[in-house]
């Protein structure tokens, strides 16, 4: 594969996309895990499918449809559950399904065949064009910069939201901003593992990292490295065995997750004896 890496642009792009996506994944995945908002993230990701439909329908790069659509989904789910007294899981469930339905309808309305629809659902890192790489770089930069600027607010609302509120932090505003950053991360990860599988890459590397870290910053760093490891290893496996790349990445990450937790359980029970 190493020789092919230099020979084929699509392989180089795939490696770059894996590494770049891991940055957003490690940073935002850590918040998703410590604030326990994995289900919301899944809701935003699936709603984003409507954005892909919109992109097809308008005949533009689907990513340009997905970005506004997923940001809208993030703000709408967040506001509905915070302000309109709708139970959070109800709001998520409704958006989840309606977003997908909107996508299917819009794609159906588009004349002709939608060729790489499957790759948005389950990812195909081997088809990432150079233009999309630049978009991922820009989104990564936005995510990292905003996280750095508001790290103390994000930490405060993740750890103890009520205390943050009485300390004068605009908690709803920062919560919505965090959901928007999740939406942008979903857009990035969509290329790598697809809408359906996003949630695993947002949670698994961070969940493993949390076991070994004493600060959120360290957790982000380790989660980024783990995410890069899983993505590159998954890419290699999919290339060698001719498997779907997104699915290979997720199965690898899931296996590692299972392994770490089994090891932890065994060590704990051995010590307990």
């Amino acid at each position: 594969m190493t020789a092919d890496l230099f020979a084929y642009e699509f392989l180089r792009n795939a490696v770059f996309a894996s590494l770049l996506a891991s940055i957003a994944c490690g940073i935002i995945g850590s918040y998703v895990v410590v604030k326990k908002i994995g289900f919301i993230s899944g809701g935003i990701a699936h709603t984003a499918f409507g954005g892909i439909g919109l992109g097809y329908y308008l005949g533009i790069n689907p990513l340009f449809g997905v970005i506004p659509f997923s940001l809208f989904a993030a703000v709408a789910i967040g506001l509905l559950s915070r302000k309109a007294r709708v139970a959070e899981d109800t709001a998520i469930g409704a958006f989840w399904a309606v977003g997908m339905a909107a996508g299917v309808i819009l794609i159906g309305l588009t004349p002709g065949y939608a060729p790489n629809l499957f790759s948005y659902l389950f990812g195909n890192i081997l088809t990432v064009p150079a233009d999309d790489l630049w978009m991922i770089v820009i989104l990564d930069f936005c995510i990292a910069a905003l996280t750095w600027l508001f790290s103390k607010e994000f930490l405060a609302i993740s750890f103890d939201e009520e205390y943050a509120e009485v300390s004068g932090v605009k908690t709803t505003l920062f919560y919505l901003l965090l959901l928007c950053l999740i939406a942008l991360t979903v857009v990035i990860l969509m290329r790598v593992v697809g809408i359906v599988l996003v949630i695993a890459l947002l949670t698994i590397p961070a969940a493993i990292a949390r076991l070994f870290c004493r600060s959120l910053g360290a957790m982000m760093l380790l989660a980024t490295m783990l995410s890069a490891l899983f993505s590159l290893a998954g890419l290699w496996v999919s290339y060698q065995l001719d498997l779907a790349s997104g699915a290979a990445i997720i199965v690898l990450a899931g296996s590692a997750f299972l392994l770490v937790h089994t090891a932890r359980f065994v060590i704990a029970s051995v010590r307990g004896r």
Partner: protein
Amino acid sequence: MNHEVIRCEGLCVELGGVAVLRDLSFSVDEGDFLAVVGPNGGGKTTLLRVLLGLQKPSSGSVSVFGAEPGNTPGRTGYVPQRLFFDRDFPLSVMDAVLMGRIALKTPFQRYSKADREAAAEALRTVGLSSLANRRIGALSGGELQRTLIARALAGEPELLLLDEPTASVDPEMKTTIYDLLDRLRKSMTILLVTHDTGTVSRFVSRVLCLNCSMVQREAPSSFPGGRAVEQVYPYPVDLLVHHADRGLQPTSKP
């Protein structure tokens, strides 16, 4: 000179159509150490939430430092009853206490050396300096409670609001926490919600008995017999009455 820190007039709070607080009027002056006692459902925590600006009153007026509640976060410290958090949260005790400084910072600002020193000082005050680098999930109940007090102290508040700080700790830790509050009262106004009707009268300057509407006692010296407390608690209450000249005298309602 005594400044008024809290003023409530005709405060009513309804939650889901049920009156939790009815026509409550009281004030707290600078330097007061006020205990709010009363049975569960008596509105103690609701009163704290109103003072913190988390709950809007249905009618009546409340002011904290002469402003609407919630508008002076930098002057008010809050110690919640119990923090339900993920034991695996990757956070050190020091970083948790540092969050007590957030009210003094604007967005974009990062914690400075001065913030870290204030947090370290707060940890010293509660006697937890040695645990500064420990993961917060590894603390015992009493250590966590003192960490929460340190977090509130790190912001150098003028008013400290505590919600049952001794609810989940053993008797020895209870004494430690009350001794700590007794030291703190010299430098700040304290309002304490508690069930410790016995212990509390030894330390506080005033007791507010809350059961929807309220009975107020000006000073613990007028506590004998504990009629006020008995009126608000629907069950027998053990009271330790302190007479300035005779020391402790246990009394209990038959």
